[in-house]
């Protein structure tokens, strides 16, 4: 009975907190500078990219190092579509969803026989191959020069200022973020997590495991491509760097730093890493070294991410309050989380 009360209270707390974050984000332009609006926009786009990635990584347990492929694909769809072919924004979004999903399905099929580090290498190879295509198929991509002049006004109805564009990005991110949330709670979404925990058990329950693996990549690819569309319109540019493997590594870092086992992990991770980058590059050119240290320290001391730490604290606090010995469960839980980000 007290559990029910606590549950209701938590729900209420959650809604209030979400509302507060939402209001703060929407109202941010009235408080912060235009530079900071740019940074917030970037965080929002990366958060969506991270959510998409985490379907495969955190939930599905498949370490992709090739998600830049979907992200860059989305960028080139809006780049080639609007700058070279005069397509409308609806077409761009539909194409990004469809082609992102198709590429996702292909990658999903290719990785069916792979596990762990082999998934990582395979996805890396696919993304690198696409990078090579983008670099060399100059007639379409303009190669190294990339495609500039992507209009932000495509996404914003009416007047495209930095602020209205930011709101538009927030809206798109919120919509697709909510879709990812629904997806992850659906039977298919839960089955993807279950496949990570035990593929043999899932198959014995009547699920075709390969379909759920492919499904994870498909949905992930589609949403990542949407994030790529937003990123290209934020920069008004798309080039081979949108497909670079460092982009794939960075999105993995977002998920891990935030906490891959949590839905909001990639959001928190994107906010933390982008903020760190912006802050560090403000006073030193050695921000790559700082980024490198971040990778190392995160894996050594915070493998379950920021939310994992928060979660541990909360469990410990609650355990103390309940006067229960909680060390064991907490330790177990965090072990499980660490493992879940890894190879199944």
């Amino acid at each position: 009975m007290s559990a029910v009360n606590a549950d209701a209270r938590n729900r209420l707390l959650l809604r209030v907190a979400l509302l507060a974050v939402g209001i703060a984000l929407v109202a941010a332009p009235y408080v912060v500078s235009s530079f900071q609006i740019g940074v917030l926009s970037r965080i929002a786009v990366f958060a969506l990219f991270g959510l998409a990635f985490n379907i495969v990584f955190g939930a599905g347990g498949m370490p992709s190092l090739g998600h830049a492929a979907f992200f860059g694909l989305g960028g080139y769809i809006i780049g080639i579509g609007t700058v070279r072919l005069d397509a409308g924004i609806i077409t761009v979004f539909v194409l990004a969803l469809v082609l992102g999903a198709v590429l996702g399905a292909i990658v999903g099929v290719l990785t069916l026989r792979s596990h762990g580090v082999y998934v990582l290498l395979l996805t890396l190879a696919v993304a690198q191959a696409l990078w090579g295509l983008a670099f060399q198929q100059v007639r379409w991509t303009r190669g190294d020069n990339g495609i500039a002049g992507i209009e932000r006004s495509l996404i914003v109805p009416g007047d495209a200022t930095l602020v209205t564009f930011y709101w538009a990005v927030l809206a798109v991110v919120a919509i697709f973020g909510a879709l990812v949330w629904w997806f992850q709670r659906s039977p298919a979404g839960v089955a993807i997590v279950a496949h990570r925990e035990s593929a043999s058990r899932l198959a014995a329950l009547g699920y075709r495991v390969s379909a759920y693996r492919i499904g994870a990549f498909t949905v992930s690819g589609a949403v990542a491509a949407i994030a790529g569309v937003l990123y290209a319109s934020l920069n008004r540019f798309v080039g081979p760097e949108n497909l670079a493997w460092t982009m794939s590594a960075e999105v993995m870092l977002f998920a891990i730093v935030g906490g891959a086992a949590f839905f909001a992990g990639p959001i928190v991770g994107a906010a933390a890493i982008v903020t760190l980058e912006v802050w560090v590059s403000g006073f030193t050119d050695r921000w790559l070294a700082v980024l490198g240290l971040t990778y190392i320290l995160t894996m050594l001391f915070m493998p379950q991410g920021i939310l994992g730490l928060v979660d541990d604290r909360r469990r410990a606090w609650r355990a103390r309050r309940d006067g229960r010995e909680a060390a064991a469960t907490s330790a177990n839980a965090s072990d499980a989380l660490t493992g879940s980000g890894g190879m199944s």
Partner: protein
Amino acid sequence: MGSILGHILNGLSFGSVLFLLASGLTLTFGLMRTVNLAHGAFFALGGYIALDVLRRTDRYWFSLLVAILAATLVGVLFERLALHRVLGKELPQILITVGFAFLIADLLLAYYGGRPQSPPRPPGLDGVLRLENFAFPHFRLALIVVAVVVWLGLHLLITRTKIGAMVRASVDDEPIARSVGVKVPAIFATVFGAGTALAAFAGVWGGAFTGLQPGSEWQILLLALVVVVVGGLGSVGGALIAALAVGLLDEFGKWLFPSFALFTLYAPVAVLLAIRPQGFFGKEELT
């Protein structure tokens, strides 16, 4: 005739460079199950240190030795202080090595600047073998020999000494390995150190071939990964055959269809991984 022979020798010598780049990577993976994505950074570290010492002392072999020792030391420290703490966890290992690569490469850039540099060829190997209608540099011939020697050394190390078995036992079950008297930390540090030593050697000899500049660390890593993946993760013999095959393919591929080079390298690797994740010569893994 001379032209075909030239192409074959070229392909083999480039393949030998690829094998040198990949040998340390395949060693650490094969024995420790650790994918060291900082491999390219150790390559650069070796190359830059050798150049630095050479400029100060003008003694080639001394600078080569210093570079290898210094990189090995860094590798051993890195293994002890960071990598060892995530023993057996693939993903944390991968991200830690990525982070270390960023760190090392950025510090190298800060210290040595960004101008392209190139460690010199070893003394005495500057010449060119010239036959009638055919020229081939001594250094490239030497690389082929060195690749075979390195392969032989690794092969013997793994099959003829107990170290291979001890390392594998330690990876599979550290407590048991400890209980039968294997000094697990020392073994891992040694193997990782050997991997970085090979990377540093590749940085000096392979570096004389490929040059050094910011970004080399990833370029070299990606090349090495292709070789290691094609050969089969952890298979030293596989890596040698794969390196030579990729070298020859690259040679003839560029000769026949020069414009698709980047794409042609990665697309077949992706397909190979999809069909045979363990590569051509890797052992099937039960997972």
